[in-house]
């Protein structure tokens, strides 16, 4: 392998690690939104997953337990959101914001003893035979299992929404909860499950950040990635395949800031760090300006509480 190639492979690898947390968080939120629920607490659940996963992985020494704990932390936080919005019918926007603020505070408090703790990261697993393909082998087939998992998850969600009966019910609940209710489907239950799935995904996203991407714990580790994931769902117009593309695009932009210095772009680091946020705004504008397209793809009842009338 030539030096040029290995540099490219290195950049490619870091793009993939930067994109993976976005894939998890965004695919979870996509399912949540498809059921008609807007959970703005992604950032808070990510931080919960990040601190929960890191703590358990550090204490138990097992990456698997850490990942499970991260997932569970995200689910617990999403359960709080689900109870408030679905049972007590609080405003989804306000409750989502509350979840984010609470998650930031709680993770900072619980993570206090973990600051400065070293962690070796999730082990990578090279797929035999395929890994021996020149260049592509290292780039595509030498990752930790969570990277493969994120791709599989997107494929699975895409299949679920498009081709299964349960996926159809979920979409019906999101587009017309009244009709779904009249047909005898349990709207609240479906939304509970979707919200929990979103929490699990946000938790996975968070623990990928703290256990593989960083790998360490710091206050506010996610630095707005939860919000970028929310924007990615709009960018993807609620379609899983586009979401994957979007996440990798943003992964690329994030990595650009790290490698800018190396490829001779000499601008202040703060300007480069602004790039993902600026890109999010630009992307949102480009997609949202086409109102017809948003209306056609967005779940029709998104953000509205459902009151079953018996």
């Amino acid at each position, binding site marked *: 392998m030539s030096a040029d190639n290995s540099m490219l492979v290195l950049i490619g690898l870091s793009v993939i690690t930067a994109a993976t947390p976005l894939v998890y968080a965004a695919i979870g939120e996509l399912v949540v939104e498809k059921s008609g629920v807007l959970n703005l607490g992604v950032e808070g659940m990510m931080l919960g997953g990040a601190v929960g996963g890191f703590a358990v992985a550090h204490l138990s020494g097992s990456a698997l337990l850490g990942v499970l704990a991260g997932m569970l932390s995200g689910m617990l936080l999403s359960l709080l959101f689900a109870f408030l919005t679905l049972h007590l019918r609080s405003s989804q926007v306000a409750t989502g914001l509350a979840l984010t603020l609470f998650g930031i505070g709680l993770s900072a*408090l619980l993570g206090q003893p973990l600051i400065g703790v070293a962690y070796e990261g999730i082990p990578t697993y090279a797929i035999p035979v395929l890994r021996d393909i020149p260049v592509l082998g290292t780039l595509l087939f030498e990752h930790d299992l969570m990277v493969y998992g994120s791709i599989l998850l997107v494929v699975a969600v895409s299949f679920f929404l498009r081709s299964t009966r349960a996926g159809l019910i979920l979409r019906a609940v999101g587009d017309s909860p009244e009709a779904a209710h009249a047909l005898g489907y349990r709207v609240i239950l479906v939304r509970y499950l979707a919200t929990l799935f979103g929490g699990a995904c946000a938790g996975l996203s968070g623990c990928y950040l703290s256990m593989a991407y960083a790998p360490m714990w710091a206050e506010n580790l996610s630095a707005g990635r939860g919000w970028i994931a929310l924007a990615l769902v709009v960018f993807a117009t609620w379609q899983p395949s586009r979401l994957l593309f979007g996440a990798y695009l943003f992964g690329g932009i994030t990595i650009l800031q790290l490698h800018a210095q190396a490829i001779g772009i000499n601008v202040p680091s703060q300007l480069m760090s602004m790039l993902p946020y600026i890109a999010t705004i630009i992307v949102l504008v480009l997609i949202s300006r086409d109102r017809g397209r948003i209306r056609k793809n967005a779940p029709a009842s998104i953000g509205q509480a459902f009151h079953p009338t018996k």
Partner: protein
Amino acid sequence: MISLQPRQQPSKLMGLLAPLLALLLTVLAGLVLFALLGVPVGQGFYAFFIEPVSSVYGLSELGVKAAPLIMIAVALSVGYRSNVWNIGAEGQLILGGICGGAVALYFYEVDAWYVLPLMMLSGVLGGMLWAAIPALLRTRFNANEILTSLMLTYIAALLLSLLVHGPLRDPDGFNFPESRLFHAAATLPNIMQGTRLHIGALVALLLVVVTWVLLSRTLLGFALKVNGQAPRAGQYAGFTQNRLIWFSLLYCGACAGLAGLFEVAGPIGQLLPTISPGYGFTAIIVAFLGRLHPVGVVFAGLVMALSYLGGESAQISLNLPVAVTGVFQGMLLFFLLAADVLIHYRLVWRRTGVAA
């Protein structure tokens, strides 16, 4: 079994009681939290809730912290009434600090009466400029203001960091990332000897009155309310949503920008890489806790200011992490949202298994 029974009309009484109930539950949950952290409960309660306000200086600090919260929250509630979800007040505050601070540094050691007013004007315009971006993107391109205003907060924080590391850095400051200390003509007058209480507290109260008049005595205030509760009715009445979006965001930008300038020209006295402990975000909780009403916001602002002081005090006397403040603030908003169910529903006890 407890079940929810819809009320005929939303309960006004519960609207007022819910925040108190939420506060009570937060304090109780806080005591549990102290116990879990291994702190004697009584000591924790005293350090967090009593000690900070048991002296005149403590009370003045409460005013220092409450002023920016009230200024921003009162403006946020204007937007939230009409479903304009500006959550980027923190960024607007930072821009106000940057623009106002830049004026102070430009007129460094110019001892003239006009420096401070010019700083305020610049701070207000800076905040408005930052808020104008989500307003433009929402009205022109339909882009969600929640996401754009939040992204702009991250950008503002990086911009501030960039400036204090570069152009606005103190030339004699040994490369520390901070600006020169503002000179006397560029700092806010104190309103109480021996404390840090500055005229921002008075301005905050003035804004409360102005906003109250705006909401209850003007057509604009009425339009905001109608468009929030019944957007279609508002449209038939000829209230254009776009104009309200522009107004809500610019008004908040102005107030947050001024609050940011007050921070740098008051308690801080220079530009630092961080100029706010998240006032712009906490103000969101203040707005909800204050029932989106200017008078309610004053009380809510004082409560949330106490959560900052309590966190600092608990850190000093009990060695607890400052993050306790964030947990308290988050819990309070959760409990409030939960308690709000009582406005529209009443709790009824029903024995299970008995046909109603």
